[in-house]
């Protein structure tokens, strides 16, 4: 063999007599007439992978100011300021509670080395990679993106990719069939007019891709650029979660643990506890706003709909669900905001991102208005352990916070629907359900524990307020 190689080398070294020159010229001539594959960049953009490390987006309401990202960052380019807020006790005679309020979250992209450690370590899935990379500035100070700007990037975050054949997906056999069934079930246009529909649709979409839902640690999905009018049910069901499909942060945490295999269970518990704790704490601060929203939203205790209202300072407070006709068309909103932003001097990409956010908001509002239209109350998609119901809630997408109502079918809703249930019973029931679904032991146990905990906390006071508490960490 080696001799052969040597011989080839010797042959290659032999002097040629101009034939090599002509061969070289032939290659060039061949290429002259070939169609070339250049991508005309600013006009045509390459379809980058969702994993592309372009810019880090912040889902502000998920941040609990745990400072893990700032600590782990090798470049120390994340700046977080926060203050503690004391909240009045939730119940008579309770202890006053403390919670962290995020004042500032900034990433200095002039320093950032795009390693992604912050995204990886975030226990509450507040950070995501977006593939947007066009945010060069003339002034280096502009490269420090404050939390508003970072939140804007959320509109561009893509759902994670499916995994390659043979990828290890702990305890999650394909759920394609039931998902499809669920999709067709809910895909009737008439059903789309109900408040619950988006929830069931998105959850079934999640179901359709159990792979990532379970394994990818940051199953953040977004109303991305693809948040093009996807409000109609069939669309949402057939294209994998174009709207939103994101397991509760708690779940994501469990999933991370899953990868750690045997040690997972041991760790899962405290994590989940923390989750739940955060959630309960969070609930208080939002109480007022949510109360308002609650009052205006036609949600019934049985419905899986839960108000999701983390309004940023700038955002308008939630208002009564307007009629559809009064609402701005999504495309109009897009154009308007784009115009405003460019007039205000924002850089084009920021303007575009903000415009996209506006479009998503407008779409949401439309969906909501349709849902709130004086028809009947949403039917519960929960009965008899339908996959959509028991599946972790496809929480509001990592879109910038919007004052909107988002139906939510979450695991904890089970005990919410029967407030008086014994925590242990909840534990057993959820465990059973999870097993039936085919979740791996660890996941099932973790979820069951989470449910038990929530049930335990919520045992005293039922009602809407308690439901809010179940929706997960929301700070």
């Amino acid at each position, binding site marked *: 063999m080696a001799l052969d190689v040597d011989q080839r080398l010797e042959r290659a070294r032999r002097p040629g007599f101009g034939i090599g*020159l002509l061969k*070289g*010229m032939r*290659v*060039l*001539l061949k*290429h*002259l007439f*070939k169609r*070339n*594959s*250049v991508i*005309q960049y600013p006009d045509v953009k390459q379809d980058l992978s969702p994993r592309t490390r372009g810019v880090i987006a912040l889902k502000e309401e998920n941040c609990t100011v745990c400072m893990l990202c700032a600590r782990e960052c090798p470049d120390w380019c994340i700046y977080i300021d926060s203050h503690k807020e004391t909240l009045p006790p939730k119940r008579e005679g309770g202890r006053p509670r403390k919670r962290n309020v995020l004042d500032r979250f900034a990433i200095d992209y002039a320093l950032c080395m795009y390693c992604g450690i912050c995204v990886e370590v975030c226990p509450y899935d507040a950070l995501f990679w977006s593939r947007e990379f066009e945010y060069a500035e003339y002034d280096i100070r502009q490269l420090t993106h404050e939390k508003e700007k970072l939140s804007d990037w959320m509109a561009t975050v893509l759902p994670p990719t499916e995994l390659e054949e043979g990828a290890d997906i702990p305890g999650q056999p394909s759920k394609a069939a039931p998902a499809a069934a669920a999709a067709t079930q809910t895909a009737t246009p008439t059903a789309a007019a109900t408040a619950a529909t988006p929830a069931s649709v998105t959850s079934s979409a999640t179901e359709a891709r159990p792979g990532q839902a379970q394994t990818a640690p940051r199953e953040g999905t977004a109303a991305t650029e693809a948040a093009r009018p996807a409000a109609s049910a069939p669309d949402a069901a057939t294209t994998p979660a174009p709207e939103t499909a994101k397991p509760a942060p708690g779940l994501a945490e469990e999933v991370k643990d899953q990868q750690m295999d045997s040690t997972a269970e041991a760790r899962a518990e405290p994590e989940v506890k923390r989750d739940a704790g955060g959630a309960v704490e969070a609930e208080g601060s939002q109480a007022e706003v949510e109360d308002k929203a609650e009052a205006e939203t036609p949600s019934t205790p049985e419905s899986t709909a839960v108000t999701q209202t983390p309004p940023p300072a700038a955002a308008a407070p939630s208002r009564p669900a307007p009629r559809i006709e009064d609402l701005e068309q999504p495309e109009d909103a897009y154009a308007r905001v784009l115009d405003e932003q460019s007039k205000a001097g924002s850089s084009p990409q920021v303007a575009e991102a903000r415009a996209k956010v506006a479009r998503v908001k407008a779409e949401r509002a439309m969906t909501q208005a349709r849902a709130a239209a004086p028809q009947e109350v949403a039917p519960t998609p929960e009965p008899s352990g339908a996959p959509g119901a028991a599946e972790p809630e496809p929480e509001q997408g990592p879109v910038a916070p919007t004052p909107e109502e988002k139906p939510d079918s979450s695991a904890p809703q089970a005990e919410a629907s029967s407030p008086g249930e014994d925590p242990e019973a909840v534990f057993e029931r959820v465990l059973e359900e999870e097993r039936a679904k085919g979740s791996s032991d660890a996941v099932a146990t973790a979820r069951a524990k989470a449910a038990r905990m929530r049930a335990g906390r919520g045992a005293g006071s039922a009602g809407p307020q308690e439901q809010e508490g179940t929706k997960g960490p929301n700070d």
Partner: protein
Amino acid sequence: MIEITLTDWQILLVKLLIILIVVPVGALVGGYVLHKEMAHMQHRLGPMYAGGWHGWAQTLADGIKFAYKEDIIPASADKRVFSLAPAVIFVPVLLLYLVIPIDQNLIVEDLDVGLFFLLAIGSVGSIGVLMAGWSSANKYALIGALRSAGQLIAYELPIVLSAAAIAMLAGTLSLVGIVEAQDWPYIVWPPGIGLALFLLFLAGAMAEMALPPFDMPVAESELITGPFTEYTGMRFIFGFFFAETAHMIAFAAIGTTLFLGGYKPIVPWEPLEVIPGVLWFFVKTSFMVFLLLWVRFSFPRLREDQLQKFAWKALIPLSLVLILATGAWILYGP
């Protein structure tokens, strides 16, 4: 119809003006062709934005950009020589266009010794290169200049000898005369010798213009830009880029005139005679430019000593042999 009568001097002035306009424009177009051909051969698109359609105004934009650049003269440079050098390079290139017959009667001055004029003027530019390299007070520039001079001395001979053979065949030094004397098929005329002379001329021309694979004087990976390392702005563009492109087009035109039958139709066929000679000339020159660029992008560059060896040991003996063969052909050929 107004009759305009011009004196000889006025006609000459008009012709010179035309040259002054045509050459820079030609250089711009040539630069654009260079960009585009290179890009497409390299699986790229090349300029696409400036001017809209396929970036047609790219070279113009480049020129304007360079015009706005600061003219920097290094502190330790010989300022007078440094500033004069680009002109010494560019003016001879302009002069080359004086004697090239674009059509039978479309020529600025049909010199009796037109061919000789071309060769003589073409060699003056190297003094400019030497001036540029020496006055820059930069080692790389000086090495580039010396390489350029050595190259010129070595390759002047093959060019002169191949041109001499052509003059022998045509029996005149006038370029119009040479074109008129050529028969179809031009390039293989006389058989074998013509093609060999053509290749000889091509090699010599590329070496004289310092085009790859003979671009050692400006070899960017070794000498940055050779003699032009310290130049910026308009001096750079006139001394280097403009002169290079204009030089290339001039040599393409000379090659067309000497070997490809100039303004005559490609094949001697009656209907083709209708097409004006200017067009034929343009087509043939374009082909020559394409050929020069094609060779240019295909090869790595030689080393200076290899180039000298190639010139002295291969090209010059070959050209002498060819002169002999041409003489024999004239004496004993058909």
